[in-house]
């Protein structure tokens, strides 16, 4: 496969600071429109949730035996979106992959806001939202402790740890960059950014501990990325529902999560680089590499989908075979095929370099990825529950306006936070970009240093 070489640095250190600080200038019309759009969608979600609080979960499309549906689908979708950020910021940091530097801050912010969005869904999904704190693992009135052998309790710990660590990782990485912004500001902004930078000065002693700590944080976050969606997958795989009870679930979910996350990164970055005038910092080289990551994980999904059908057939288990037959040819066949086409096949277009470097086609593909990955979770959850072991109990569910309202609200909530972050904090990592730009020398470099 053709490789686009890393472009040589054309900016100086001062240019990088100026350009990134420039993204914090007053909002353009396009940005303001996007922000209003996001807030509008969020309000749709708020109104829908208020009605659910008043009238109950019956407003959503739950239909026996399907008591996990759109809300849990959307929960898994947003947790998955959160995977690309820490993959790019932590795992690719350990691999010293240079293309991550320009995009990792945006993906990290995306991770934090996606997991924040996901965290709302268990609360929306429970019947009595005002006792949401029962989700927390603490002893009940009979002094009975949480069931630590349950994947649902593992999930609380996994998501809680992931949200905490990825938020800390984002904030930690921001400290030197916020200090650089502070030094370019005046008045009250200087005071605010000064406080947010914890009065960082970039001294040798600070860098010495900071660089090491960043490395260890990345090392801790790396297995965490792979563990979180594995634990989410065990919510399903450790049950006995046909279509869920598979050992392939953990790697299958992790690959899908990274695939969906990179898809969302593309959806966000392609318009954002234009509105924030970052075309010279995020270019073909970065999109080509993100596309290859998408292609790689999309191909794993192609294999996993094929393997799921093969195992269902080869197992000779009637229930598994029926579930997978109905996924493809049952009443909700359209969901099954949307998932397979958007994820397994659309991603294969990225074998072509012309598509990888054409931002319009990449943007369109990224939308297909988002749709496909939402449907993947919908198909896994709803189609499996709709036909388990007793055909008498089989039924199908149709999402209602309340399901769609909450889904729209989640996109608004996520988009609102992401856009506010992009306009108020450096969306490109200043200090890491500078690491790749050689500092000026008075005399020619001698060997021995790197």
């Amino acid at each position, binding site marked *: 496969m053709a490789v686009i070489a890393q472009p040589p640095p054309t900016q100086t250190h001062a240019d990088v600071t100026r350009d990134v600080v420039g993204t914090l200038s007053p909002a353009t019309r396009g940005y303001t429109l996007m922000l209003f759009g996001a807030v509008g969608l969020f309000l749709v979600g708020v109104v829908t949730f208020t009605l659910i609080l008043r009238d109950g979960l019956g407003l959503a499309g739950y239909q026996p035996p399907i008591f996990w549906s759109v809300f849990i689908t959307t929960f898994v979708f947003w947790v998955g979106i959160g995977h690309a950020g820490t993959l790019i910021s932590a795992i690719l940091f350990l691999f010293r992959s240079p293309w991550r530097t320009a995009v990792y801050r945006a993906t990290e912010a995306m991770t934090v806001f996606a997991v924040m969005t996901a965290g709302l869904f268990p609360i929306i999904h429970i019947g009595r939202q005002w006792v949401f704190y029962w989700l927390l693992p603490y002893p009940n009135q009979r002094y009975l402790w949480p069931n630590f052998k349950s994947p649902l309790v593992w999930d609380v710990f996994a998501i809680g740890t992931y949200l905490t660590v990825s938020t800390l990782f984002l904030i930690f990485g921001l400290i030197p960059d916020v200090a650089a912004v502070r*030094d370019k500001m005046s008045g009250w902004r200087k005071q605010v950014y000064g406080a947010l930078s914890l009065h960082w000065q970039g001294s040798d002693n600070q860098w010495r501990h900071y660089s090491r700590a960043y490395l260890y*944080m990345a090392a801790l976050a790396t297995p965490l990325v792979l563990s979180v969606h594995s634990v989410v997958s065990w919510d399903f795989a450790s049950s006995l529902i046909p279509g869920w009870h598979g050992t392939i679930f953990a790697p299958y979910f992790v690959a899908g999560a990274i695939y969906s996350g990179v898809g969302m990164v593309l959806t966000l970055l392609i318009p954002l680089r234009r509105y924030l005038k970052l075309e010279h910092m995020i270019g073909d080289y970065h999109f080509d590499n993100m596309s290859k990551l998408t292609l790689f994980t999309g191909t794993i999904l192609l294999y996993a989908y094929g393997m799921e059908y093969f195992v269902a057939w080869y197992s000779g288990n009637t229930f598994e075979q029926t579930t997978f037959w109905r996924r493809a040819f049952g009443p909700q066949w359209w969901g099954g095929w949307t998932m397979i086409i958007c994820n397994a096949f659309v991603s294969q277009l990225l074998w072509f370099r012309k598509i990888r470097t054409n931002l319009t086609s990449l943007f369109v593909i990224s939308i297909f990825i988002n749709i496909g990955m939402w449907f993947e979770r919908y198909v896994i959850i709803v189609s499996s529950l709709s036909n388990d072991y007793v055909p008498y109990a089989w039924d199908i569910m149709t999402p209602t306006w309340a399901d769609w309202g909450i889904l729209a609200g989640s996109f608004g909530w996520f988009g609102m936070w992401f856009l506010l972050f992009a306009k108020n904090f450096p969306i490109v990592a200043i200090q890491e970009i500078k690491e790749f730009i050689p500092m000026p020398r008075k005399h020619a470099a001698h060997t021995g240093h790197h």
Partner: protein
Amino acid sequence: MARNKVTPGVLASFEHIDVACDTIRTLRAKGRKDITVFYSHPSHELEEACGHSVSPVRLFTLIGGLTGTIAAFAMQIWMNRNWPLLVGGKPIVAIPAFVVIGFELTVLIGALSTLFGVFFLSMTLRHKGVTYDGRFSDDRIGVFVPAGPEQALALEKMFRDAGAVEVQRAA
């Protein structure tokens, strides 16, 4: 920073990394150990010139991580024994089922402890009243050496001769 007492000394500003590194090495060769160097991004070359040993922050990570592992297993074993309840035919103390939360708390406490280590070891710098210039987060390298009036003149001359683009005295 105004509320902190300013440490008297000389602050030199450099544009070229090789010049800054040579100056730092010269100062260290003269026995100065109280130099503060400011730069905008991590640089192996400057770190080597400053001659620091490996940061002890790794101990915070290790101790935090191990604390998380031990705490997670201890919590789960104690709680399961405190109110024994058979679930899914598994033993009361089912170690494989406890691994997930053991792992999560290892990462969580390890990460929190690492951050605590950084703040404990390095984020108190501003209280020392060392003079700072906003250009050090942009494209300049700063070298600050504490000095009384009698030493300051000689240091200023040394910095200028070495190639500093700006030298200022903090008093």
